[in-house]
């Protein structure tokens, strides 16, 4: 690859200090435990996985809201840890975060115009003041809002429109990377599709890259160039989107995909999907060996003790499973129920 990736995560470990636990000792929940991930310029990489697996923690580390325990976040080849204040300021411009709840991230007392121009006030030089009105109108138009509504307040918009305001705001600083953390999850299907179409258009027109975080496997399949499947703080499988969906090789990915109900496949009542038994283990006390072994139908002794590395295992893309195989190895009658 000749072009410098926008974002590189190198052995990223990040988490939270806790007080409870045995004997009330201070501990560290390693919510993200050794993640490597690259997002190229203009590329869309989706991070998927169950609730609590560490997706938002990755997002927080990327936008510098959370300092990594170890490892590196590199932006355009430069490590965040090594940046001086000026560089950090510039970085804050180039990486934007869009959250699930658009209302919580918009100050209710600011008009749309104020919300969008806020960053221009903080970072003079992005847009000269005499261009503000024209630029606000253009941004609103771009995200499908009426420029005449610039003087309105967030509560005067619907949920989908508020998410558009957040996107307009993120775009106002001309970022190279937008981190979307469940940015479409709370929206109605019809509006979700509008926002995805908008993000796709911005990618094509402006070359924005996305680190797109979601638990919705349908959205991922239609939006991502590449997918990283995360389980309990680690990436267990990664590759081109169609590769992962057509030949998932990690049992966890296989379970996720088989369990996702689909409108296209509606005749499938799901009677032979792979059912995972048991609860998701906690990152404060992860299982030894392969962290998936407590729920895995392929697990044997080795999985209880040896942690499988994320590497090429003859399936065409990296997988972290000792028994990686495109075949689930399940006969219908032995499927876990």
């Amino acid at each position, binding site marked *: 690859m000749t072009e410098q990736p926008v974002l590189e995560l190198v052995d990223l470990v990040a988490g939270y200090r806790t007080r409870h636990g045995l004997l009330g000792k201070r501990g560290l929940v390693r919510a993200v435990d050794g993640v490597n991930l690259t997002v190229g310029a203009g590329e869309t990489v989706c991070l998927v996985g169950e609730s609590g697996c560490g997706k938002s923690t990755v997002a927080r580390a990327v936008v510098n809201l959370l300092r990594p325990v170890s490892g590196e976040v590199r932006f355009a080849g430069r490590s965040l840890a090594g940046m001086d204040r000026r560089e950090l300021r510039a970085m804050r411009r180039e990486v934007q975060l869009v959250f699930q709840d658009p209302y919580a991230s918009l100050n209710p007392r600011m008009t749309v115009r104020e919300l969008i121009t806020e960053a221009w006030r903080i970072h003079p030089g992005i847009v000269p003041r005499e261009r503000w009105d024209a630029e606000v109108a253009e941004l609103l138009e771009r995200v499908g809002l009426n420029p005449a509504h610039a003087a309105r307040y967030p509560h005067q918009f619907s949920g989908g429109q508020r998410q558009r305001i957040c996107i307009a705001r993120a775009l106002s600083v001309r970022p190279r990377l937008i981190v979307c953390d469940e940015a479409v999850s709370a929206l109605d299907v*019809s*509006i979700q599709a509008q926002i995805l179409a908008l993000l796709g258009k911005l990618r094509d027109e402006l070359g924005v890259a996305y680190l797109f975080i979601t638990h919705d496997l349908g959205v991922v399949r*239609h939006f991502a160039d590449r997918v990283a499947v995360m389980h309990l703080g680690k990436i267990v499988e990664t590759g081109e989107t169609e590769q992962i969906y057509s030949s998932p090789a990690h049992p966890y990915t296989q379970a996720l995909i088989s369990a996702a109900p*689909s409108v*296209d*496949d509606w005749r*499938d009542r799901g009677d032979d999907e792979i059912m995972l038994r048991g609860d998701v283990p906690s990152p404060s006390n992860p299982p030894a060996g392969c962290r998936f072994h407590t729920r895995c139908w392929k697990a044997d002794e080795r999985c209880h003790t040896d942690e499988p590395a994320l590497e090429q295992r003859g399936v065409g893309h990296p997988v972290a499973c000792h028994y990686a195989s495109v075949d689930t190895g399940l006969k219908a009658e032995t499927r876990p129920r």
Partner: protein
Amino acid sequence: MSDGALLEVSELAVAFGDLRAVRGVSLTVEKGQTLAIVGESGSGKSITSLAVMGLLPAQAKVVGGGITLDGVSLLDLAPDELRRLRGEELAMIFQDPLSALNPSLTVGYQIAEMFRRRRGASRAAANERAVEAMAEVGIPDAAGRARSYPHEFSGGMRQRIMIAMALALEPRLLIADEPTTALDVTVQAQILRLLRERQRAGLAMIIISHDLGVVARTAQSVIVMYAGQAVESGTVAEVYDAPAHPYTLGLMAASPSARTSRRGIRPIDGNPPDQAALPTGCAFHPRCPFARERCRTETPPLRRLPSGRASACHFAEEVLAHDRTAGA
């Protein structure tokens, strides 16, 4: 009234003051069958089901129509009779599972209390039945977990406990409002399987969901709501194979699927309607690719189509003939 009808809702209208949240909805649930309600956020799905349960918010009023369970009009029942019915004949799983559990009582106690109060079971017998009910919804070590408090369970477990409570007194009709929306797909799969098993054992259900895939995995028939009205109804097979209303067509095209490679999802243009200022004529017309002049002035009634299904579109025949692969 058809033979196996357990619940009949006819021309139900519910208003919050001047705001008409539900505007003439009719539906039938047959014994042992599942009906799904899908539709845009704010279209009246929850309010319709709360009306059936007799649990409307205080500001809401039923302003028209009827609701009968096995021929008995629920709207005419005295409050204590309705209370008896709830739990015994009718049960509901709410959109937010935490709000329905008491945080300061153990989960086992809360389930056991239902058996004591409703069935006059002794303390010991009630506790035993509570553990059974929890085991039945797949909670491991149910006897031990019965002594845990709601916050000590994961979201998926709490949802299963809600289902255990709803099913405990063996109701004839269960209304499940977005029962899996907050859950991971793996947990969702477990819960949908549980509901399917109960359905096979004779439970009738109404399942509310915005996820057409979830609906397909549980229901036999479906009604599609838009702006307080049913705009389409039919069997799941009929509606999914060939939608007869442009909104349904749009909804299907907008739903991303994990099972098919990039077919491209197509958004529905425009915004959901403002319930306080609905468009004239057909409420969907500002967003509808099929709309003509007539749609702006004339409200299309929900009318039967030859196959027995129904659509509230002036041009339902045209929509039916529309080739979905070609794009709207």
